[in-house]
């Protein structure tokens, strides 16, 4: 019952966003191309308990500290853009190995705590041959909206029913949001941005 309601909510978020006027709430940046580019000042990621794909409990702020992170929002029941997002991360994983950027991790965070658990996330990672530096995690249901709200990750009204944008968000070593990539940015461009972030700190 809850799963049905939750997934319907996820699928209806784009319609709901149109009704509720997300562009008005998020300001002029949401018109046209949406929120992307450098984030200044860099806000610190919110405190958020997470369960990793291997079942270990952790917190978002702990995961982000001390390394650069490329983060994406997804859910394993998403059949449209999320498989593509996973493919982008798989390509990014490969590019990062070639670029030899130190201390970089990938983090896929589920927006569907009702439908996703450690087992589902582990299976999802396996589908894309995720390595050790690619983590997947899910927050508790009560805090499911905290990270999407922080990232201002809502789809352009009428654009999709997945409830999130297929953007990659880059965090610096202090756990602060530093850059929003364009939707479905290429692995090459993400590596380039991470390289700049590593250089600038």
């Amino acid at each position, binding site marked *: 019952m809850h799963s049905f309601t939750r997934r319907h909510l996820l699928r209806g978020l784009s319609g709901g966003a149109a009704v509720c006027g997300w562009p008005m709430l998020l300001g002029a940046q949401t018109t046209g191309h949406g929120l992307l580019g450098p984030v200044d000042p860099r806000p610190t990621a919110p405190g958020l308990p997470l369960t990793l794909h291997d079942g270990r409990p952790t917190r978002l702020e702990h995961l982000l500290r001390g390394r650069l992170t490329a983060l994406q929002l997804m859910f394993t029941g998403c059949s*449209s*853009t999320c498989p*593509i997002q*996973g*493919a982008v991360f798989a*390509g990014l994983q490969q590019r990062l190995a070639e670029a030899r950027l130190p201390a970089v991790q990938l983090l896929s965070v589920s927006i569907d705590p009702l439908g996703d658990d450690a087992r589902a996330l582990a299976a999802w990672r396996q589908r894309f041959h995720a390595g050790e530096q690619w983590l997947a995690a899910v927050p508790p249901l009560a805090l499911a909206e905290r990270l999407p709200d922080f990232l201002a990750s809502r789809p352009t009204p009428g654009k999709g029913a997945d409830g999130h944008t297929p953007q990659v968000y880059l965090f610096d070593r202090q756990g602060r949001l530093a850059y929003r990539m364009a939707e*479905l940015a*290429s*692995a090459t461009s993400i590596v380039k941005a991470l390289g700049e972030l590593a250089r600038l700190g």
Partner: protein
Amino acid sequence: MSLTLRSAPNRLLLGGVIMALCGGALAFAMSAEDAALGRALYDGQRALPAQLRGHDEALPAHAARCINCHEGSSAIAPALSARSLLQPQARRGGPPSHYDEASFCRLLRDGVDPAWVLLPREMPRYEIPAQDCRALWSYLLQR
């Protein structure tokens, strides 16, 4: 006057009827074959090489299936059928347009619709041979 096969014209007539029937049967068989191939391409049973615009990496087969985005309650792309493809309608803010086989195949390969509007990046670019594209087109027109 009864119809017999003794006369050459009657034999020619019978031969023509038989050939027409065989041709029709052959055409039907080819269409059914195309439809089966088209269905396999649509639901991903048969993979098509694909990548996103601006990306260097190929998409894994399971991420590039047509049904992922064009089918089901969580579809984020238009349903594909004879009606949606052949009927003139405004698409993606462009002028009214409709597809034919050539423009459909161009869309799959280049990501440009019949009104020359560029499709969103979510729509993969496919490497699809002419025969496969024809089969997919035939299948979609039967939906």
